[in-house]
């Protein structure tokens, strides 16, 4: 019952990972008694489960996820929202208004218009139906300030770091508020544009080097260097 990879080895789709007494985990599949990779990523075995941590993937909605989306259409009783997933999401008017919604009285485009960005939670989703969103919780709703950037959704856990170590480092060093949409959209809100740009630079670096080790230290170093550089410039 051998495995055919070393820990954290870069594998391509279709690569044979293991044979026999194993279970296909994330991004891998079983054919006969052999396990193959589904995506390009780093292979890893956990007990008898073979996983591939994907380097390239797209977001698939999951109930309870916090996502950041763009309103693309104002409908009769709700909005259509692009959440960078294979499916567009629906946000119902009654959910936003938190009172019975009457088409005669309420003009939906005054609440949210096409192009508006929102932070929302996936209320429900299954194979047969498009995801439904909700904004009825604190911290959710229309985004009024800050900057938006996109990262590959699989790399969001890396941006968070072990027990949130990475993200709290960035927050601390830059003084920015950061909301990570599980769909790979990130909202950075800071006191000024420079702070926001610094935070975004750090996140971009994490995305590019997500599959390397010792990243938290390098990011901390980078942020400190950049900060001192900016201090110097100010003093001149």
């Amino acid at each position, binding site marked *: 019952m051998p495995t055919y990879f070393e820990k954290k080895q870069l594998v391509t789709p279709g690569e044979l990972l293991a044979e026999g007494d194993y279970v296909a985990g994330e991004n891998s599949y079983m054919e006969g008694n052999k396990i193959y990779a589904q995506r*390009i990523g780093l292979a890893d075995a956990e007990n008898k489960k073979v996983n591939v941590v994907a380097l390239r993937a797209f977001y698939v909605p999951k109930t309870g996820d916090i996502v950041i989306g763009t309103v693309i259409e104002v409908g009769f009783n709700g909005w259509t929202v692009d959440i960078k997933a294979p499916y567009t999401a629906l946000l119902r008017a009654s959910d936003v208004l938190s009172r019975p919604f009457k088409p005669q009285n309420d003009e939906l485009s005054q609440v949210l218009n096409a192009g508006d960005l929102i932070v929302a939670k996936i209320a429900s989703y299954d194979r047969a139906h498009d995801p439904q969103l909700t904004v009825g919780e604190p911290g959710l709703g229309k985004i009024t300030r800050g900057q938006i950037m996109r990262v*590959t959704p699989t790399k969001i856990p890396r941006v968070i770091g072990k027990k949130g170590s990475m993200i709290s480092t960035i927050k601390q060093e830059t003084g920015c508020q950061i909301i990570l949409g599980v769909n790979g959209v990130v909202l950075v809100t800071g006191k000024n544009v420079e702070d926001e740009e610094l935070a975004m630079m750090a996140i971009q670096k994490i995305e590019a080097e997500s599959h*390397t080790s010792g990243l938290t230290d390098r990011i901390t170093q980078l942020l400190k260097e950049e900060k001192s550089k900016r201090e110097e410039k100010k003093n001149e």
Partner: protein
Amino acid sequence: MSEKPEKLIDKKGIRLDGRKTDELRPLKLEVGVLGNADGSAYIEHGKNKIIVGVFGPREMHPKHLSQNDRMVLRCRYHMAPFSVQERKSPAPSRREVELSKVIREALEPSVFVDLYPRAGIDVFVEVLQADGGTRCAAITAASLAIADAGIPLRDLVVGCAAGKIDDTVVLDLYDAEDKLGAADVPVAIMPNLNAVTLLQMDGILTPAEFETAVSMAVEGCKKIYAIQKEALRTKYMTVKEEAEE
């Protein structure tokens, strides 16, 4: 190519472009060349130059084309007006429509279409320069682009052709050999699963010759597969090395 040369292959088994009978043309593959597409790849196979962009999975447009039980794969093969000696009309020709279908059907078995019902993938194949064997090169590049888009695959699909010129079965025909030769057999396979996804034949071959041609093409596919995998790896390896310096 004005007149037919007397022989396409000489006594020593050397072809018009200097290759041996079982030799591939030089190959270059690159992944992630387009910023706007979700996945992309570029291939140079001899004088063929092909660029592929992949979008999706995304909502199907028009919506009535979506399937409730699976994801739809759409493919467009197109040759640029400047891709051949004489200007090719940019409108899709009969041949292009057929190749779009053939490429789609060669790629479809490799994609897990049942994972994302109602969604669709669009594959755009743009031939910038053509020199014979574009369908195989297009399949190789398209599969790479789909993998680059992060779409789950059973295996990468790789294509390669074999054929008959004069009386010899040879690997990887280029334009002149394709037009003047006796037969052409394009093959696409999923090497790890040992599965054939495309098999066509144009021309006349004896059963024995056909078998040699297919096994020759499969060998060619396996050689290209190694380069294909390497191209996908390279994109991430370079980042890794830079970071660890």
